[in-house]
């Protein structure tokens, strides 16, 4: 196996979606190829850092505001879609 072959399989290797034989071949390559070991290890760290980064979290106040707006728009849509005669029987808005 060459380093280029290893690189092509890297995503499947990190995602553990490959057969046992290919996996064994890749691990054998990692035993002796320091460069591929480093690339594999640092790529894995890259994924973990992004996964744990909490980049772009939704703050609670904004979350509430957005949810209120969404629910209100859904209610308007529901009311528009229903029969206008039914709406005349519904309780008046606050």
């Amino acid at each position, binding site marked *: 196996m060459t380093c280029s072959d290893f690189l092509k399989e890297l995503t499947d290797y990190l995602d553990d979606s490959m057969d046992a034989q290919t996996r064994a071949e890749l691990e054998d390559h990692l035993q002796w190829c320091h460069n591929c070991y*480093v690339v594999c290890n640092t790529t894995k760290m890259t994924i973990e850092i992004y996964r744990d980064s909490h980049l772009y979290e939704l703050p609670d106040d904004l979350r509430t505001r957005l949810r209120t707006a969404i629910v209100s728009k859904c209610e308007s849509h529901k009311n528009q879609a229903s029969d206008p005669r039914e709406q005349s029987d519904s309780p008046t808005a606050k």
Partner: protein
Amino acid sequence: MGTIQPKVEATGDELTLVHAAKAGDISAFEELVKRYDRNVFRIAQHITQNREDAEDVVQDAFLKAYQNLANFHEQSKFYTWLVRIAVNEALMRLRRRRPERMVSLDENIKTEEDSMPREIADWSPNPEQLYNQGELKEILGKTIQGLPPSFRTVFVLRDVEGLSTEETADALDLSIPAVKSRLLRARLQLRERLNKYFKNRTGGDGKQ
């Protein structure tokens, strides 16, 4: 060397909520909003790279999902269907903001070379501890922003949000080989760009 496991949680009662929402129960739909609003916001902000656009995408994607619930035939998870709507909304806003550049998920990639590792350097054992929280977020935000939208969308769905390869392909209307190819390139390009921040400095200037 260990493998990366996805973080998607099982949602047993989801279909009950979807059925209730389809029958007109807005509080059931609100539960679905609560369940996925954070994910949709993250995806939208990653794609648009703009906070206001991301807020609009959250609202528009959920409203569109509500309006089109009858067209959700439950052949995929509700979340995958919602992500598909959110990604389309986000790409539309990105196109509006950058009309000079063609933005597409089919955007193709020049050569294999852009993803070939150039610098091979081991990283510090806990690279995220080299920076404070604010600095780290800035580095990660700036770095992912440099990827083409087609790469960062696949990376975010697959590696940040934990969708499977099949779900990512379904949500983006891409083939599985196309998802895998973009994911590999995204991962390698991010790794390469993060090298300068995270590489092990021991033996250089003597500092850990």
